[in-house]
């Protein structure tokens, strides 16, 4: 019985620690990724993934591929919940990600070429939702 109080305390501390670890890390973009985006080396593709506008360095390639894998995992999870295919969900996210690009960033136009975002609305697939 005399052991129970410290035990409970340590169990509480452990579960609190687990909660902190499990909470989604609301981190911002990796600085290398942010820099590549701003420099127009990496762009938003129409299919919902990142693409390379110019041949990437090995570390940038690994970083962007990792982001695409993470994107795919998120797409797959939400697509299942929405009873849609991963491709459909990814395409929808691609429409929105292109809409969110900042002026100077690259995005893939419907004809497949890389376009630079200006202050004007981006050229998007006609199936993309407005706004």
């Amino acid at each position, binding site marked *: 019985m005399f052991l129970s109080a410290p035990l409970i305390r340590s169990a509480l501390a452990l579960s609190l620690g687990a909660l902190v670890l499990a909470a*989604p*890390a*609301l*981190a*911002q*973009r*990796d600085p290398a990724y942010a820099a590549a985006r701003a420099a127009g080396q990496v762009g938003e593709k129409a299919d919902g993934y990142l693409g390379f506008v110019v041949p990437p360095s090995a570390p940038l390639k690994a970083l962007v591929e990792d*982001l695409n894998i*993470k*994107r795919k995992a*998120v*797409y797959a999870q*939400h*697509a299942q*919940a*929405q009873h*849609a*295919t991963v*491709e*459909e*969900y990814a*395409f*929808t*996210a691609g*429409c*929105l*990600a292109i809409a*969110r690009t900042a002026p100077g960033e690259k995005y893939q136009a419907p004809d497949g070429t890389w376009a630079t975002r200006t202050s004007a609305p981006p050229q998007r697939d*006609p*199936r*993309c*939702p407005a706004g």
Partner: protein
Amino acid sequence: MTRRELTDRASLATTLPMQGDSKRGRFRGLTRMATAGMLVAGLLAMGGCISVNAPDKPIVIELNINIQQEVVYRLAKDADQTIAQNPEIF
């Protein structure tokens, strides 16, 4: 007319079809033969009409995903939240 025939250990064949000289039995046999003959003739005739040509173009299976606009509109709200909730990967 019923003839009696020797049929080894089995009982005597007494019905007309069993003896093979029943009018009805013979007629049925002939009909069946005629039907079969017509079928064979028909198949042969049809065989002359069927022509199987190899396609001159290679068979291409279309793998382009046909995404419907209505699906995109349905998913838009959820996808927008997903992007907002995962700023580190978008």
